[in-house]
């Protein structure tokens, strides 16, 4: 539906985005994640046709909409964008919501009908007559969302929709979005730095770093099979070990990391330098060495523990440092505490290998 080919943007000679190739299909919920300043907002602005790219082209349903002003306005009117900072116009909440429809020249009867409908849908009918400028930040964001939805956009763009909000308002916005995705198969492109939110809502995630789209795929792919060490670090993989392939036997390979070796499933060849990535959730702990299907078992000492909610994060020194998580209960049952010896094990298939 929306396609970017080699999109780039310069601001006063500084390249903010380069060579973005991206396809957004109907019903896609694409989350753009990336650190601050990666170009997420700029990419959204280009896709929403608020700004012209310095390079590359943009297609909407196969039509090139990069250049013609007239076409750009036409296509922009089929999409909506909720900017990060919600701005309300003077007038009541109802007036605010009606703007998009009025600008599209809709009949006043229809404007009223659609406005009332969206007020109910977003759950802000109670303060429809209030002066919009007197609303709180969370309420303004809801108005901004309602204002964007009332025009029935084919693509909805959201820039950090919950970043500046308290948790309750944030959850409210997210619930509305989840409902729209569920019931209307709404096409959404959103930028967020809240990766959990990305995972909850998106069916595709794009990782944007210093102006480049480094990886795009399903949430599982991004979080479990990051394409590079930078992405792995960004998506919160904590065990990133540097090593090299020393043996290869079919799909199974042996990797040496410092003094220790372990077995992994990879297509890399002997001699390759690699990053071995193990998610903390994939590591199991035991006090005694037990028989299990896990090929990699290491004995080590607990060096550090931290309780996070109902979970305990442990750091184990087994020649190299491994980070793992346990539920608080199982940690207590096993008597795991700093200084205690444990066996940490993980499967060969739990290790994701990135070639360096």
């Amino acid at each position: 539906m929306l396609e970017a080919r080699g999109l780039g943007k310069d601001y006063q000679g500084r390249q903010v985005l380069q060579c973005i190739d991206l396809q957004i299909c109907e019903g896609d919920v694409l989350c753009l994640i990336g650190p601050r300043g990666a170009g997420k907002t700029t990419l959204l602005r280009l896709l929403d046709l608020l700004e012209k790219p310095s390079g590359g082209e943009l297609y909407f349903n196969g039509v090139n909409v990069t250049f013609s002003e007239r076409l750009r306005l036409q296509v922009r009117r089929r999409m909506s964008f909720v900017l990060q900072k919600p701005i309300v116009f003077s007038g009541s909440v109802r007036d605010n919501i009606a703007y998009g429809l009025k600008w599209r020249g809709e009949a006043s009867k229809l404007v009223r009908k659609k406005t009332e409908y969206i007020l109910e849908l977003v759950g802000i009918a109670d303060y429809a007559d209030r002066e919009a400028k007197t609303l709180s930040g969370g309420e303004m964001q809801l108005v901004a969302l309602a204002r964007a939805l009332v025009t029935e956009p084919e693509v909805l763009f959201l820039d950090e929709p919950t970043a500046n909000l308290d948790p309750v308002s944030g959850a409210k916005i997210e619930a509305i979005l989840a409902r729209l995705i569920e019931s209307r198969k709404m096409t959404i492109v959103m930028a967020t730095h809240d990766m959990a939110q990305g995972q909850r809502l998106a069916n595709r995630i794009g990782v944007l770093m210093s102006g480049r789209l480094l990886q795009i795929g399903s949430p599982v792919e991004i979080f479990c099979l990051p394409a590079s060490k930078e992405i792995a670090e960004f998506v919160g993989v904590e065990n990133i070990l540097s090593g090299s392939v020393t043996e290869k036997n079919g799909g199974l390979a042996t990797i040496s990391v410092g003094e220790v070796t372990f077995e992994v499933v990879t297509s890399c060849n002997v001699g390759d330098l690699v990053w071995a990535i193990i998610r903390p959730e994939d590591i199991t702990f035991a006090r005694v060495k037990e028989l299990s299907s896990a090929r990699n078992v290491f004995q080590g000492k607990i060096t550090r523990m931290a309780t996070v909610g109902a979970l305990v994060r442990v750091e184990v020194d087994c020649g190299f440092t491994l980070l793992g998580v346990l539920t608080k209960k199982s940690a207590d049952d096993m008597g795991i505490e700093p200084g205690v010896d444990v066996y940490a094990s993980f499967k060969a298939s739990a290790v994701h290998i990135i070639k360096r």
Partner: protein
Amino acid sequence: MVELWHAFIKALELIASLDSEVMEITRRSLAISVTSCSITSLICVPLGSLIHFNRFPGKSVLINVIQTFYSFPTVVVGLFVFVLLSRTGPLGELGLLFTPVAIVVGQVLLIMPIMIGLTISALSGIDGSVVETAMSLGASRTQASILALKEARFAVLTAVIMCFGRAISEVGLSIMVGGNIKGFTRTLTTAISLESSKGDIELSLALGVILLTLALMVNLLIGWLQRR
């Protein structure tokens, strides 16, 4: 001092009795200034937003020049219009010199820079993302600019008041291109100037009081508009 006090009482009497000459001058003054202020608003508010919303080379220089013209002496504008409209001037054919139209032309030229400049500052005063937000919701550039003007309406209204104030209170221009012709181009300010040099302090004072009252009324009107 006593003399001045007597003159003031006399002036109030003139106003209270709706003296025909006083009323006639007041009406003309108002008509001329309202006309020039309206024409200027119609031209300069859109022009100001055009300058504000477009990027072009020399923009800041242009704005500086406009701001310099805020304090353009009325007599210099008067001189310019005089030369323009005098019989031998480029527009002399029209025979407009010493008519109310000439005063309007002069006043428009006088207050144009103020109206453009204050429109630009009014628009700079609003949050830049207003226009962005409007465009993201499907507004064309023109629709977004109109919304921005609406958001800045108090400041724009203030610009209009300032311009009206300058138009109704200037004297040099009205005398030079209007000629202070009784019953034709005589305005409040030109009348005050002439009558006081003739020694008719009462009439001058009466006209002065009216001038101030008008200013007060305009301010009250705008204040009322802004509260709505």
